[in-house]
């Protein structure tokens, strides 16, 4: 169990289950995962928010994390780039590796450069569109060989936003719509060439059309980086994700190929949630 790359820890399930589903688990095994979280426990003060979560993220795949509110999926995601450290009174146990190296021991700014994040609500800086994109490359010293204009255009193109904003690059980032702002935030994250992109319910504040654009974008981006998305929207997970993990009460109940999770889940809790019996 402990050596399987795509495993569920024995006590991850609140109920005793037969071991037959381990075959399901083997379906999401990958030779070398891009990222791996091993036995993560996480505490807000004395409250234990994550219980022994282990999960692998395959390179160039989209992994969705689903589950009811308060189940720990966002908390888990926010540990993957160590942004949770900035909250007071938090503590993490376990190991998170990126290309086999434990990110918890490394310089946090470099880790966050390599693992980008997009948040629940668009959070552009109170600067121009151009300045928003160039912020990351500038603070990370990535503009030595490339011009700022080049980086801005390339990043906006990658986020499928270039055509919509190319004539107003120096306008305030607040002058564009919410959906465009969120794609701007994706472009801003892509501007530092992250290897992994974390998205924390990126469409929860957007309308269906803006949501569809971001979903298309994610599918096209996975060729360039590994994507992890937290979502409340099960249809969204089904549309964009290669594999899906289901969280409940701070535990990872099940992680498998997305169609297995939605059509033939191994655990009763997963099935209850998928079919709308709770959550």
């Amino acid at each position, binding site marked *: 169990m402990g050596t399987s790359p795509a495993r569920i820890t024995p006590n991850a399930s609140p109920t005793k289950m037969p071991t037959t589903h381990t075959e399901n688990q083997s379906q999401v095994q990958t030779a070398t995962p891009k990222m791996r979280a091993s036995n993560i426990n996480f505490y807000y003060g004395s409250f234990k928010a994550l219980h022994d979560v282990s999960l692998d993220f395959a390179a160039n795949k989209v992994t969705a994390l689903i589950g009811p509110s308060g189940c720990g999926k966002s908390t888990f995601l926010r540990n993957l*780039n160590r*942004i949770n450290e*900035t909250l*007071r009174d938090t503590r993490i146990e376990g190991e998170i590796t990126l290309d086999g190296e434990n990110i918890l021991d490394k310089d946090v*700014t*470099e880790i*966050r*450069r390599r693992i*980008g*994040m997009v*948040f629940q*609500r668009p*959070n*552009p*800086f*109170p*600067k121009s569109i151009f300045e928003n994109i160039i*912020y*990351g490359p500038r*603070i*990370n010293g990535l503009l030595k060989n490339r011009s700022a204009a080049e980086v801005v255009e390339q990043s906006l193109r990658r986020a499928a936003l270039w055509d919509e904003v190319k004539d107003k690059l120096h306008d*305030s980032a*607040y002058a564009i719509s919410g959906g465009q702002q969120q794609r701007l*935030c994706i472009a*801003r*994250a892509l501007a*530092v060439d992250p290897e992994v992109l974390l998205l924390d319910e990126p469409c929860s504040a957007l309308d269906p059309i803006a949501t569809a654009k971001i979903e298309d974008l994610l599918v096209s981006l996975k060729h360039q980086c590994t994507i992890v998305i937290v979502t409340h929207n099960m249809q969204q997970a089904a549309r964009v994700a290669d594999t899906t993990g289901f969280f409940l009460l701070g535990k990872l109940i099940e992680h498998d190929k997305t169609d297995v999770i939605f059509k033939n889940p191994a655990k009763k809790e997963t099935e209850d949630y998928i079919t709308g019996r709770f959550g």
Partner: protein
Amino acid sequence: MTSRNSRRNAVNNLMLTLCGVCAFLTVSTLFLILGYLVYHGAKSLNPNFFVQLPLGEGQSGGGIANSILGSAEIVALATLIGLPVGFFAGVYLAEFGGKTLPFIVRYTADLLNGIPSIVIGIFAWTVVVVPMHHFSALAGALALSVMLIPITARSTEQFLLDVPRSLREGALALGANKWRTIATVIVPAARKGIMTGMILGVARISGETAPLLFTSLSNQYWSGINEPTASLPVTIFNYATSAYEDWHQLAWAAGLVLLALVLLANIAARMVISRGASVPR
């Protein structure tokens, strides 16, 4: 039911009227003071008033040029000392430290804010004027900066804390370290509020009289930074408490000048600040 409704409507109207009247009182006070100052002070205002030195006791005419310059000098010096210290203390309160130390600093700043200005005057007199053996603009500036620091620190802290956490996380998530995040995202986002707080702080100390009575005192002539220096508030105090009607007129005029300068600085600063984007909430 109807009587209940009419009672609720009556209470509603009563409270609305009460709030309106109080708002009117607040605004009208400023205009009342302004009108009073203009009525009494305007007739003494002439070009000489701004460029001449005061004349001796009982003589009419003369100006308060040295007080205007002295006030500008003392306030500028106090600003130079007080704003940076207050600003960085505010950044510390909002952004750094655990629980205990910021609590102590915050509490101390609040206490300092509440200390009567005359006590700060006595304090500055004891630690600056007595060892130096003379009154000076420098001592006055130090006393005023002691007042400016907690005002600036607390308002800076408040406006920094108002910056949405999502902006902070946005910068950190791109690989910015804490100071970089503060300097390039948080402070610019809070810039308007911080600067407004600073202007109000400077306006507040510009009118302080008590600390200056003990520190820069006053002067009939032009003076250096290390000498007793005239300032508008102290000049107003001296003229207003004198026995001569001419000097009472000068006090009104000096008051008008002080108020006008503070208002002008306020308006100019607000115009500068209103440029540039702000964070929607």
